[in-house]
């Protein structure tokens, strides 16, 4: 039932917007679907918390704490983006980004594209998390790519076309690698359990039989899956599409991709990680994960230091964040996965805030270049600009904001797992990233006013910012117990320690 709600609401929304002729109608449907989706996600989380796992259609759809967490976060971001998107596109229309007022029909077409494709995107994201079958999961991940390509080309600029092409190609290659990996796992499963059937790829079955998998096949499979879903998550060196796509897509899309795509890809990776650990033990996957995690952070750092465009800056930041999560997974132990999933949670709340502030800044100044903008944004955006600075502190893991807790947990995992050298390198890179990030944003926000002081008019754009800011501050000191329970349960699944149920 809950599954049905979760999956059907976005599909329905997409269908309705496709046929609706009225802008307000589209916006209304969009908002409602976002609310409904979030409600469904909360329901699912509730069921999982009470019953441990839930599934239907003979395990075709399956949800444990891990999937529930990912679904919850995804639908939360979707919910946060919905009102912002309304304000964002209205402003675009006002600034005549879609061309002049002559052809309102064209505007509608543009908007419909967004309001139709985004729910599909949301649908496939939810499917990724609740698919009990790794093959279906792959199909769903591919679905997210297909749904988002045309969102990247939204503005139809040559550059957005370029970004979309690169995105499509890299994601395509990556996902074929992931598929290859999935096939190999299926082969291994068949070989150990015998009998080719749909259920052979079901998580519940696989995790049981993983210990008997053929080791060589599993190694190969893990490598392919790591590269494949890594490309989707934007782990270096498969990260190259990210800055282009994020800086070209409309801000709400960028926010959705930066959080949900990352979450989904890492979710998939985590599933295969568990299988691999059950078969090979932690050593082999850990060294690869640590390598790629540090590589991502290390690649992100210099680009953040000498960045010229603040939306690309955000993209590199999310490469860095992805790296941190992968690193946490790699450090392993009890703390590593916990740190990773906490980081995923906190990141899903903080990153949209950054994107919204950046979007407001861009629509205010008309460009997203750090060089062209004189600074003193504080006077033009009395609400968003200071929040931009605060969010910067939050995303760079500055206490008292919550991402410090998760990063600290990852560090602890590193030291607990005798990876001192790696952990120290990690800390050093974090400092460098903070330096670049904070320097650029402070230059942008502070300084003398360039024009007369203004007020932020569009409430659709400021309220989400304020709401998220409050949430970010609160989370720094207090995390709702159910959410933490969900995270911890998820961490248990990843560390494959048996969960204790009340």
């Amino acid at each position: 039932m809950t599954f049905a709600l979760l999956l059907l609401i976005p599909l329905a929304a997409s269908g309705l917007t496709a046929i609706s002729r009225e802008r307000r109608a589209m916006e209304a449907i969009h908002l409602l679907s976002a609310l409904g989706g979030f409600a469904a996600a909360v329901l699912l989380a509730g069921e999982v918390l009470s019953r441990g796992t839930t599934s239907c259609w003979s395990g075709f759809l399956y949800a444990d704490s891990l999937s529930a967490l990912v679904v919850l976060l995804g639908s939360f971001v979707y919910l946060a983006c919905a009102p912002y998107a309304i304000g964002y596109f209205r402003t675009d229309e006002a600034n005549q980004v879609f061309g002049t007022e002559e052809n309102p029909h064209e505007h509608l077409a543009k908007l419909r594209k967004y309001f139709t494709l985004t729910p599909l995107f949301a649908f496939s994201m939810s499917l990724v998390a609740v698919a009990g079958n790794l093959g279906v999961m792959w199909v769903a991940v591919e679905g997210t790519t297909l749904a988002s390509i045309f969102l990247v080309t939204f503005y139809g600029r040559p550059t957005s076309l370029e970004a979309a092409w690169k995105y499509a190609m890299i994601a395509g290659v990556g996902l074929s690698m992931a598929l290859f990996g999935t096939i190999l796992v299926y082969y291994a499963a068949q070989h150990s359990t015998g009998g080719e059937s749909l259920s052979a790829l079901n998580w519940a079955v696989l995790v049981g039989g993983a210990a008997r998998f053929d080791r060589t096949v599993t190694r190969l499979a893990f490598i392919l899956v790591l590269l494949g879903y890594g490309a989707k998550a934007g782990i270096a060196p498969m990260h190259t599409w990210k800055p282009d796509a994020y800086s070209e897509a409309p801000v709400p899309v960028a926010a959705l991709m930066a959080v949900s795509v990352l979450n989904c890809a890492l979710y998939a990776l985590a599933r295969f990680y568990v299988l691999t650990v059950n078969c090979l033990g932690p050593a082999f996957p850990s060294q690869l994960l640590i390598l790629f995690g540090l590589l991502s952070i290390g690649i992100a750092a210099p680009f953040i230091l000498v960045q010229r465009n603040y939306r690309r800056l955000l993209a590199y930041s999310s490469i860095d964040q992805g790296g941190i999560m992968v690193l946490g997974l790699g450090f392993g132990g009890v703390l590593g996965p916990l740190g990773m999933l906490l980081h995923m949670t906190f990141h899903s709340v903080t990153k949209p805030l950054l994107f919204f502030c950046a979007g407001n800044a861009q629509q205010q100044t008309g460009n997203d270049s750090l060089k062209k903008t004189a600074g003193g944004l504080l006077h033009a955006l009395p609400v968003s600009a200071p929040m931009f600075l605060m969010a910067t502190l939050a995303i760079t893991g500055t206490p008292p904001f919550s991402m410090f807790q998760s990063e600290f947990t990852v560090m602890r995992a590193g030291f607990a797992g005798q990876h001192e050298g790696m952990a120290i390198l990690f800390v050093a890179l974090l400092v460098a990233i903070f330096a670049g990030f904070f320097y650029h944003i402070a230059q942008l926000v502070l300084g003398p006013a360039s024009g007369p002081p203004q007020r932020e008019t569009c409430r659709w754009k400021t309220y989400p910012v304020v709401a998220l800011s409050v949430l970010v501050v609160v989370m720094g000191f207090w995390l709702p117990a159910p959410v933490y329970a969900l995270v911890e349960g998820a961490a248990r699944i990843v560390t494959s320690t048996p969960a204790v149920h009340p």
Partner: protein
Amino acid sequence: MYFWQDPQFGDRMITLMAAFVLVLQITMVAQRWLITNIRAFAVQSLLLAGIANTVAYFNHAPHIYAAAALTLVLKAILLPVFLRRLVARIEIRQEIEPLVNVPLSVIISGLLTMLAYVVAEPLRAASGPGDSAALGHNTLPVAIALFLIGFFMMVSRRKALTQVLALLSLENGLFLAAISLTYGMPLIIELGIFFDVLVAVMILAILVYRIRETFDSMDVSRLSRLKG
């Protein structure tokens, strides 16, 4: 018993067809005419359908017939036709000089094939030889080779359309792997994959068309405005 019931014969057939598939892949690397590439891809897909049929026949796995049929319809007929239309629309016949020249590309393809064998070796060892379940397992190296060579084509070719073709041939490698290793993924998943491929090709085609319009060229290496 008749020879067409002899697993050995089936094994031979499969190996033969797999070899042809590999040859076709290398042909695609070697020459530069778009149309020929598309034709090669069509034939390749046809052979894959053949392999699938054989496996289905000898292993009495009906759902693989479905996969074979899908391959035949989709990859061997629909997509080639569609792509030729596209080529006709955008009036580009020949691949401009690839980043890696042809002789070198062929050599590299050879090396990749060897790598594929090296990688596949332990897996063949894993599945005990001789038993009928092992039917067609020896095509796994071919599958990996298809994958790697296709990947290499994506790296070395400049035309957007050729990259699409390369991606498709890479997918063929996966299909071959699926067939030869696991006698096909569960049908529902196969369907999903085929659906995805179809949609992907549509989208990519649209992108190709747009690129052609916007940059009035299909040279991907011109798409380098976004830096840093």
